[in-house]
């Protein structure tokens, strides 16, 4: 088992610019079932991908791959033709919100938005649009979701992952890689790693992902990686205390960040005394979460939490 994505996940790509093409290629090399693309002006044509298989991905495949995916004008047509149940959004920021809503309107179950720099007001409208719909949005401004050996949606390097028993959820891309890498080196491996993104308004929060990991029988422990800004980590800590039976380890980035300065991510800002690392760490510790003092200690903190 795993959460969100597995070997049966079939994926559309929205946005086939340079970035979209590159990551579609690496996803196919990993073994992800990429089944179609959406691009309004290239509809009716095809995209061909071939190269050497990434053997860190889905096992039992040939050494090379050669895959052709059809291009559709809209998500609805693409879903109808391919039966895809997930999509990944690489559409540029000014058009990304619309792309997400289009996927939701077409009934896509899981939309993973990689795009960085979407206006906050656009995401506020997207969240409103998604109310009452079954679509789950991951991101935006995130590395994506991966279930090692089954499905990789996003921009994370596949080879640092290893199938195992730890769930990883994070607001930061590269810190997710740090955690995954350490967990792999310790031989624990991951069930699924989820980047929820660094924006102030995102589709899926820590709370949602923690509940999914709690319900997943294969996941034995969870690493959650937060950062300054907002109160999502405090809310997550309450859920950990109230609902989770599985051990949780955590790290919060931004202890040294000065107030009023936005640390790269739109969501990472301490303002008006809210969103400080200290408050988050205290809330997490009192919920029984084992805190890693530095990001180099995340794997060890998980091992300690597992006992």
């Amino acid at each position, binding site marked *: 088992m795993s959460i969100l994505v597995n070997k049966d996940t079939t994926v559309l790509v929205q946005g086939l610019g340079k970035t979209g093409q590159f990551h579609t290629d690496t996803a196919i090399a990993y073994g992800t079932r990429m089944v179609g693309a959406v691009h309004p002006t290239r509809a009716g044509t095809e995209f061909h991908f071939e190269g050497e298989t990434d053997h860190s991905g889905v096992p039992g495949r040939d050494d090379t791959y050669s895959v052709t995916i059809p291009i559709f004008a809209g998500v609805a047509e693409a879903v109808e033709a391919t039966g895809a149940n997930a999509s990944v959004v690489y559409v540029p920021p000014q058009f990304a919100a619309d792309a997400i809503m289009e996927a939701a309107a077409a009934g896509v179950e899981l939309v993973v938005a990689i795009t960085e720099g979407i206006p906050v007001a656009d995401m506020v409208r997207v969240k409103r649009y998604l109310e009452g719909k079954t679509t789950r949005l991951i991101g935006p401004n995130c590395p994506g979701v991966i279930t090692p050996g089954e499905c990789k949606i996003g921009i994370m390097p596949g080879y640092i992952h290893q199938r195992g028993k730890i769930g990883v959820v994070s607001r930061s891309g590269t*810190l997710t890689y740090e955690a995954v890498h350490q967990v792999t080196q310790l031989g624990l491996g991951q069930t699924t790693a989820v980047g929820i993104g660094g924006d102030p308004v995102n589709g899926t929060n820590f709370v949602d992902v923690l509940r999914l990991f709690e319900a997943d029988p294969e996941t034995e422990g969870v690493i959650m990686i937060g950062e300054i800004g907002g109160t999502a980590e405090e809310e997550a800590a309450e859920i950990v205390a109230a609902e989770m039976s599985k051990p949780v380890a955590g790290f919060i980035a931004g202890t040294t960040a000065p107030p009023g300065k936005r640390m790269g991510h739109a969501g*990472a800002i301490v303002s*008006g005394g809210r969103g400080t690392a200290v408050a988050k760490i205290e809330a997490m510790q009192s919920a029984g979460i084992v805190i890693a003092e530095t990001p*180099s200690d995340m794997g060890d903190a998980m091992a300690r939490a597992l006992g």
Partner: protein
Amino acid sequence: MKIHEYQAKEIMASRGIPVPAGTMATTVDEAVAAVAALIERSRDPVVVVKSQIHAGGRGKGTFKEHPEVRGVNVVTAGIEGGVSAAEARVKELAGQMLGSTLVTVQTGPEGKTVNRLYLEQGIDIDRELYLAVLLDRSTSRNIVMASTEGGVEIERVAEETPEKILRAEVDPAIGLADFQANALARGLDITGDSAAQFVEFVKTLSRTAADLDTDLVEINPLVITTAGEVIALDGKMAFDDNALFRHPEIAAMRDDTEEDPAELAAKDAGLNYIKLDGTIGCLVNGAGLAMATMDTIKHVGGEPANFLDVGGGATEEQVTQAFQIITSDPNVEGIFVNIFGGIMRCDVIAAGIVQAVKNVALQVPLVVRLEGTNVEEGKRIIDEADLDVVSAASLREGAEKILELTRS
């Protein structure tokens, strides 16, 4: 992006939100020239001279060069002495304020140079209130925040008397509804004509926030005059950088003199840089990892000199620019490069580092920690370049090593 008070008031006025009459001045002559017209327009002999900087607390702030002068000054000389007396006092004040360094609770001890003044009519205040529109992250919607406690720091109100802060959630599909605006007016105990004015005011303000993609609109204080008028005595607006592409008129309001030059250079180079007070420069890929790198430097006993995120796909040129920006800070005694290459390949970054170190003729110790895609190739490139570079296997080890090198 932040703008000045006078710019925020221009925007508000253009959308029908009541603000006092005012004029911006960049020289003493312009300031003096504005006085007569302002007094005539407002039919009030009182003029207020306000420093325009991108920081709050101006009213209580003082100038380094003139400790007796505040950041905001009410000129009452006109009440008895007429226009000429007001002009004389404004001339004196403008001379002291323009080009001087204003220190407030928000500027830090180094203060900020005042390059612009805003001259405004005096207002007879009955009540001072607080009003703001900002994002509530827990509901993913804008909220209107209001309080009877205007003119003081809202953070203090939130801390000491949280029950005095009223909130109304704005549905993005509907906007602030009448009943919500009415409830706010009742909650603030605004009655009669003023209540109707307030309702219009808060609805327009909420719509303005949505139309212009603001991060924050804050009016502190919002005043009710002795004549019962509802008017924005102060105005602060900040905008979502990611949405500026659809508001060129607002993007044009950016005042580069308010920004740190190194931070501006970084922005132009597509880098995310924030200057800090320490001695260890950092160059990292990813915002979260960049913050965590700063934290780790602090954890092992050092002080980070900056936050710098080169992003996911930095080029050799960007890495060179990053080194130039970091070394332009005279406090930097050593540099720690921490890269977890996912999409970014370590061999590319390594080549960039080698080139950058040669280009900028690096004078301080350098520790490099590489991990991820093509890491072995990256390490080989750095080893073979024959540079004075120390490599580290983990973030923590890298932080310890750079600290050791800067202290030896």
